[in-house]
């Protein structure tokens, strides 16, 4: 396909990710770090994020399933998760993490469980969208200019 067109599509999708609040300014920071020396920097970071967060999500699941629930540990995990999601600019995910932590501090198990579902959901949505996005980016990069 025409490279210009692909690039245009990439730009549109990118804008919508921002407009819809999936990504925030921090993502732009990452993009700015990308240069010729690291042309795929953003993708690499995001991939790293997926790996790390999958691990955290699992830990949180386990902690939520154990009885009695260890809220401080949960808070700890979530703090980490929030830290990394905010580092890549995952806005919605980060917000859900904040909600979760509130419930955690209040030691509200029900609230934690519910909000964790939200966290996972937002995480899954973002992940899907970013995968599509990066795929387009890669295609545009190798496409020939018409």
């Amino acid at each position, binding site marked *: 396909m025409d490279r210009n067109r692909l690039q245009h599509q990439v730009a549109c999708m990118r804008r919508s990710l921002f407009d819809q609040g999936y990504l925030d300014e*921090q993502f732009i*920071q*990452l993009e*700015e*770090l990308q*240069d010729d020396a*690291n042309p795929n*920097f953003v993708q*690499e*970071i995001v991939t*790293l*994020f997926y*790996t*790390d967060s999958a691990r955290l999500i699992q830990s949180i699941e386990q902690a939520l399933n154990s009885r009695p629930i260890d809220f401080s540990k949960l808070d*700890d995990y979530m*703090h*980490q998760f*929030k*830290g*990394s999601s*905010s*580092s*890549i*600019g995952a806005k919605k995910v980060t917000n859900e993490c904040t909600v979760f932590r509130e419930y955690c501090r209040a030691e509200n198990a029900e609230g934690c469980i519910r909000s964790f579902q939200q966290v996972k959901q937002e995480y899954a949505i973002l992940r899907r969208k970013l995968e599509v996005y990066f795929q387009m980016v890669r295609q545009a990069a190798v496409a020939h200019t018409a």
Partner: protein
Amino acid sequence: MNSNSGKGSMSTASSSAAWKTGDVVPDQFPAGLRVLVVDDDPTCLMILEKMLRTCLYEVTKCNRAETALSMLRENKNGFDIVISDVHMPDMDGFKLLEHIGLEMDLPVIMMSADDGKSVVMKGVTHGACDYLIKPVRIEALKNIWQHVVRKRKNEWKDFEQSGSVEEGDRQPKQSEDADYSSSANEGNWKSSKKRKDDEDDAEERDDTSTLKKPRVVWSVELHQQFVAAVNQLGIDKAVPKKILELMNVPGLTRENVASHLQKYRLYLRRLSGVSQHPGNLNNSFISSQDATFGPLSSLNGLDLQTLAATGQLPAQSLATLQAAGLGRSSAKSGLPMPLVDQRNIFSFENPKLRFGEGQQQHISNNKQINLLHGIPTTMEPKQLASLHHTAQSIGNINMQVASHGAQGSQNNSLLIQMAQPQSRGQLLSDSVGSHAPRLPSNMGQPILSNGIAATRNGIPEIRGSGYNPISQASSMLNFPINQTSELPGNGFPIGSAGISSLTSKGTFQEDVSSEIKGSAGFMPSYDIFNDLNQHKPQNWELQNVGMPFDASQHSSSVQSNLDIPQSVLVQQGFSASQVNGQNRGVGVVSKAMFSTVDSTEQGNGQNVNHHLNNFLVDNTIRVKSERIVDAGPANLYPDHFGQDDLMSALLKQQEGIVPAENEFDFDGYSMDNIPV
């Protein structure tokens, strides 16, 4: 990377000339700055690394604190600055901070996704030169070089002017975004300076990066040397000049010794006359951080007396302490009065330092020295506790308070307070009470005589936390040796700072010292940590004799050994010693104190620092604590309570209380009433 050596070369001009590449700002500091970044989150770590590389820094990344520490130890001069996350699985970021400060004296920037005030405050009190909120933006990293430059500049200046007070003159270059406490400190510092006693070296205790004067850190060893000298001369005949000569420590100034002597005398006085009443100390103890006086006992090594005697404690504090400790005997023991203030200083929460009558008595009788176990400080229980902690952490300033018999109680907190502000919250309250480093000996706890700790800060304040009177080993000034729980009292500067040191909350150090009524050397914190890791043999350059709490700063050095009760870092405001020239004086102590509190484990020294810091803060807080104390000291300061408030409170208090304090031997000093 640039041809720049990466070593924080101070000449921006050259560095900018060296490269004007890409988007590098021309007058940006040095490319090639060697940064060590520590974070357990791989995503963040990678991003940071990339960002730092983009800033043209030389980056080393590390995902574990232990690894980072060993890297730093192996190559002490291999890095210019460290950036560390707060939450890490293997070691708390603050502990790492303390270690680094104590051992290597490098500027450390903390970062976290947590932007809560208390956490940020903790960073400040532990000596971080900056705090970044995640997600970190590259703009925030572009200017980190300023911390390196500032530190060097301060050290350099201290060098030149050891002993001369330079407040304000040497303002470190404040970069545009140096919005941290340094400016606040300066202000405080200046005001406190006014109160300083005749010694005019106001030690600013701001956090490391903005430290103006190197603070002398009274490490355990140094303190022992001091004690030896004093004993050789005879406590009555020990004058700073002679002690200085006997000690023969390069870089140590007469002012340093004088303030230390003050504290020590207070401590001794306290030991001798104070009855230990655990209850009183609650006052003002250093709120949150307070010097954990706890371990004063550990001060054993230190011989609080010495500490007290060193006069580190600001005269006021001493007096206060004495008064406190003596309850009524009011500083007779000849301890300089300033102790009183010191106490305040130390115990941030101790508004009470006022040993004034009433309260003091109350306190003094009671607690006094309980901080230091045995140190009959008038400090309130809390104080004692804090002292205790601090003492402990301080590495045992051992204020041999007990040995001194006399005062003992007075605020051994001096040391102790500093040490552990945390645990007891009272930080110094106790110590303060004990005034002079008398601490420990009886205390067993390292009441950190925070030099000041006992000084007044906490004197009465020692938060209820039970100050475990420093029963710890009687190490007198052992500043809050980790053992104890952290004295909430901010590690305030051991006594010395009287309260002045405390004022700067964040920077305690400055205020504390200054507050301390001028008493020169309010020994804010005896850095009992003793070199915590033995760091630098005290760079006395710092002249901060009086003021010393560089609570924050020293933390680095102090902290490392907070654990060692023995290592009471008596930082009286001496900034520095530990740190390379860092004058953390006060900070040190507090650091020690604080650290002890926090990290019992490693950082014994660290706690002390913290505490010390607390102490410093405490002093200022003292003012507040007064008020608070009434309210019920015990919860005065949650760990991170508004130190500022405390500081101001203390400051106010100090002012009120202090009046007489400066006199060094104010026997009849009636410490303001320290609300019991």
